[in-house]
């Protein structure tokens, strides 16, 4: 084995080249990790919004909650469904909800800046028991029958009046903000929750937009779907597993972000591998005599191959660590976009975790190996005579 200090000194001697290679590779790793974090964040926001134990009932064909409707009569029929779980007190865990889109002025916007479309969810008293990921983190729950609202944590501070103790004005009413809730990073955090009856009054609606319920067991959903289809007064409705519904909601946006992310990553990976190859080739061609000497004093071809691969890996690990470290800072930032399927603004977090770090590091090492392999091979295949004669 050629000692490791030899590799370290070699890299340190050609400092400019090493630094440029590391800078380039770590930028690539940074972007790669950011893409991973964002797609994880999108996944969190959508798939985690729902639970596989819950079902949502919407109008057949409705692509988002805001365009759906379930009449109060239909709701009463659904309430009696045997598939619905109940609390220990015997209250059925089923609630009608009213989801509307409101236009809110942005906090940093002037009078002419267009507002943002934010989802407002009117909830029933049992909604919070059904959606148990929702936790009030500041203030308290809005009281039923009032205009009080609570804000998802991604809404807090983003729009005019969106702070605890202030009030939001939409639909010609003032809505006092009494609480802020978190929901495990899900899309609910981009919504405003208030009392269902108050929202219905404000928007002059009678029917619910959708119904959410807790299933007794997982097979309950197919039984429920069967009964919806068979009952003529319920046949306009469709039952979804809640997590699958929210997942489907973000499909267009997610395929765009993931598609773009993949494209950018592939391009960067190619560029990074080419950059690493250029560097390693020059390492080899600058050290022909050294290689010849090493071979002449008895090191095998394999040892030479190893030494160059080792240098490539050292460069890539260092870049990987720098890139991942910078990317981890992104978890402080978030990313707010309009979901074209629901027409509401959703905020995603960059989700950092040990798995993201590992995948990004592995990616970095792979780039190093890809870039270093051919030059290392050509170094190993040199003939001693030619190598020692080189200038």
């Amino acid at each position: 084995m050629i000692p490791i200090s030899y590799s370290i000194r070699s890299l340190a001697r050609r400092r400019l080249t090493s630094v440029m290679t590391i800078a380039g590779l770590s930028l690539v790793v940074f972007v790669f990790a950011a893409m991973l974090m964002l797609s994880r964040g999108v996944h969190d926001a959508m798939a985690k919004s729902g639970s596989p134990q819950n079902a949502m009932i919407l109008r057949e064909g409705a692509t988002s909650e805001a365009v759906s409707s379930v009449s109060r009569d239909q709701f009463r029929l659904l309430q009696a469904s045997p598939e619905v779980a109940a609390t220990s007190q015997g209250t059925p865990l089923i609630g009608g909800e009213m989801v509307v889109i409101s236009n809110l002025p942005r906090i940093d916007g002037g009078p002419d800046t267009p507002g943002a479309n934010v989802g407002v969810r009117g909830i029933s008293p049992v909604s919070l028991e059904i959606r148990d990921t929702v936790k009030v983190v500041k203030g308290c729950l809005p009281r039923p029958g009032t205009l009080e609202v609570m804000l998802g944590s991604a809404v807090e501070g983003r729009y005019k009046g969106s702070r605890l103790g202030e009030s939001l004005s939409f639909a010609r009413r003032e809505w006092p903000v009494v609480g802020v809730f978190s929901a495990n990073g899900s899309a609910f955090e981009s919504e405003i929750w208030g009392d269902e009856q108050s929202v219905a009054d404000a928007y002059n609606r009678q029917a619910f937009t959708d119904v959410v319920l807790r299933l007794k067991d997982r097979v309950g959903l197919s039984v429920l779907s069967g009964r919806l289809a068979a009952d003529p007064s319920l046949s306009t409705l469709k039952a979804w597993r809640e997590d699958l519904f929210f997942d489907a909601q973000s499909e267009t946006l997610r395929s765009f972000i993931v598609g773009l992310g993949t494209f950018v990553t592939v391009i960067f990976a190619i560029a990074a591998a080419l950059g690493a190859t250029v560097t390693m080739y020059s390492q080899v061609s600058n050290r022909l005599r050294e290689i010849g000497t090493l071979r002449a004093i008895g090191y095998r071809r394999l040892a030479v191959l190893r030494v160059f691969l080792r240098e490539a890996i050292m460069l890539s690990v260092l870049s990987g660590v720098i890139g991942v470290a910078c990317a981890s800072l992104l978890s402080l930032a978030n990313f707010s976009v309009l979901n074209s399927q629901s027409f509401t603004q959703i905020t995603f977090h960059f989700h950092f975790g040990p798995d993201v770090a590992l995948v990004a590091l592995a990616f970095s090492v792979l780039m190093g190996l890809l870039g270093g392999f051919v030059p290392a091979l050509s170094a190993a295949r040199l003939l001693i005579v030619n190598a020692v004669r080189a200038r």
Partner: protein
Amino acid sequence: MNLPKLALRNTFRNRARALLTIGGVAVLVVAFVFLRTVVSAYRSTVNNSRSDRLVTRNRVSLALPLPLADFEKIKAVPGATTVTYSNWFGGTYIDSRHFFARFAVDPDTYFQVFKDVVVTPEALAAFKADRTGSLVGEGLVEKYGFKVGDVIHLKGDIYPGDWAFTVRGTFKGSNSFQNSSMFMQWRAIDKSLPDTQRGTVSQYTTLVKDADHSPEVGKAIDALFASSANETLTESEEAFTLGFLMGSAAIITALDVVSVVLLVIMLLILGNTMAMAVRERTGELAVLRTIGFKPNKLLALALAEGLWISLIGGILGAIVARPVIGGFLKYSGGFVTGASANAWTLPAVLIALAVGLLAAAIPGFRASSVNIVNALRRAE
């Protein structure tokens, strides 16, 4: 031998390295053109929005409609020339990946207000004559191959049910959003609703006589309905579109950042190659100095080499970019439609040249300030 030619010879002295660097530049140029194309497609929608068109919608929420009865009242507002109304149809074509805008319009007035949407009189007449007819934008024709007589099946959401619209003609809009829109008749969708929900529209669009007076006309329209059950919000088409795009501002910012990162990576790869090239030739540069080359010449030689690499890489990338990006946009899920990479190929090559020049600068100065005695001694 002149200087550019000498630089070109130098470029390819280490063939593997030159080709790898050129390949890297080409790939990065493709990516750069792609990102700029996507961003331009977004922005073109705003740039082509007009300030002499006003959009009136329900003040409470985009999802709430306005009564059709407002139509006559808006028409009577002084300063308004023509008014039309349209509804967002929503719906799904095949599945949610195939997203494009679908509007139910009033065929008699729509094209008088949207004069930038070009449709032949024959196509318009055929559209008017068929209650279940439709007009499709050029971008959709390109993507899906729609032709006159085809039937487009949609699954309704806002207007529930299964819908079938016959293509009666195509139109050419002034931006990518219009070009990937589909129109059907407002009457057809209104008829499908229960009696109590009929006679509503999602937005009115008003063409004003004089763009300078748009704000006053907008205020006059909102004043008409200020105390009605359906308060309105009127803004210029520009502001309305901007409101939608601001929703995507984060994506645009991310794309801007990534484009800059691409250029930085290009700079690093090119800089690395140039640094190596100059370092290898230290002895030779000293020889050039001794035979009378001025430092400026050596700097120019290095810069020319940087330019050659980035020029070849840039052109290669620009040639590859068109088909690659065209292919990608076709399958991009409809988020970006009607965008073309052509506008960005020349700027991308120029930017690559600038990056090449910048990358060669530091190694170039090193070359020009080479210490003859030391360099010659090292070269033996």
